[in-house]
């Protein structure tokens, strides 16, 4: 293994949480998340040589990860719609231990009904990014990011209400 590969894998391990969360947002089964995770790492590795240290590795990672996830989701149409909350609930429980956090669990289930861009918006919001940062990452205007994010939040609330969950 050459030094740049070692360095790259170290950075991936340091920021693995981001990739895990992106994978959870976009894929609702472990196999799908594994595939997406690997796809993102490959895409990062592919463009790692051109990555300039002007921005933080994690900032660059957000962009590549979300772009990869969005393209992959659109292309493969792996997004599956589950009719009942029961099925979704089982899926989420299998994914990771969320006994302590039902709210997050239900959120993950609801988020699977969003489209690729809505997922990216809500993901960046939850990661604590400002409207400006979200706009920069997704290549849209700040106003557009704000409007779209508000709509996405409303949509999530509607989906959760549909399942008769309240927080």
């Amino acid at each position: 293994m050459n030094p740049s590969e070692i360095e790259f894998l170290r950075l991936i391990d340091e920021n693995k949480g981001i990739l895990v969360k992106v994978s959870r947002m976009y894929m609702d089964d472990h196999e799908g998340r594994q595939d997406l995770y690997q796809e993102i790492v490959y895409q990062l590795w592919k463009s790692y040589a051109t990555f300039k240290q002007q921005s933080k590795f994690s900032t660059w990672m957000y962009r590549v990860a979300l772009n990869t996830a969005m393209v992959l989701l659109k292309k493969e149409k792996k997004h599956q719609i589950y009719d009942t909350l029961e099925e979704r609930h089982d899926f989420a429980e299998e994914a990771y231990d969320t006994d302590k956090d039902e709210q997050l669990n239900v959120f993950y289930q609801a988020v699977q009904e969003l489209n690729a861009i809505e997922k990216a918006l809500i993901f960046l919001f939850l990661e604590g990014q400002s409207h400006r940062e979200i706009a920069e990452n997704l290549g849209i205007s700040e106003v557009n990011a704000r409007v779209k994010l508000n709509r996405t939040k409303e949509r999530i609330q509607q989906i959760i209400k549909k399942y008769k969950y309240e927080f």
Partner: protein
Amino acid sequence: MNFDELKKSWQQQPTDEDLQNPNLKYYKEVGNIMGKLRKNIKREFISWAVCMGFLFLVPILPIYKIEGYAAFAYYFFIVQISLSSLLYYRRFFYLVKSTKKIELLASKEHLLKLYYDLKYAVETYRIAAYVMIPQALFLYLIMIAQNRTTVWFDRLYHFKETFQQDPNFIVWMILSAIASIILVVGLTEFMIRAYYSNYITQIKEKLDQMEAE
């Protein structure tokens, strides 16, 4: 729903899910294989285009003297062969295009898709080549007969009489046909082996290695 609370839960969620890093060496290796494969497909396509160009010009060349009905039949077969060839080049074009896209190389699933796409393209190539053998034989006949094509066809049409009067002609025709079939089949298999088979094997090896890990 309180999004601030959700944000807090989101940031505190455990992220220790068992997601394996991919083996980056496969990326390089499969990338190299696909690069060579794309180059071979292009090279093979250029050779085909040059061959078709030459075949198209054959009746015009004074050495061949193909005229009249023979020229009409000749061009008919050329068009037929070109169209059949486009059938497999369409598969190869799809393959080249898909290997440039994002899903290339990443997961075993995608590599498996690539493997079967390539196998499918090669099988289409083989089938199209075999199906074109009769047309190729006619073309060959027209080319070597030169201005005697219609006479030769007439002699073949009256097979019984010709066999009685000039058995050597029939024997020579049959032997030529057999030799041509062997040549076309041999050439097709050689082209497949030289241009594509090795890469199918290499991709299969990578898949097996991924499976074993």
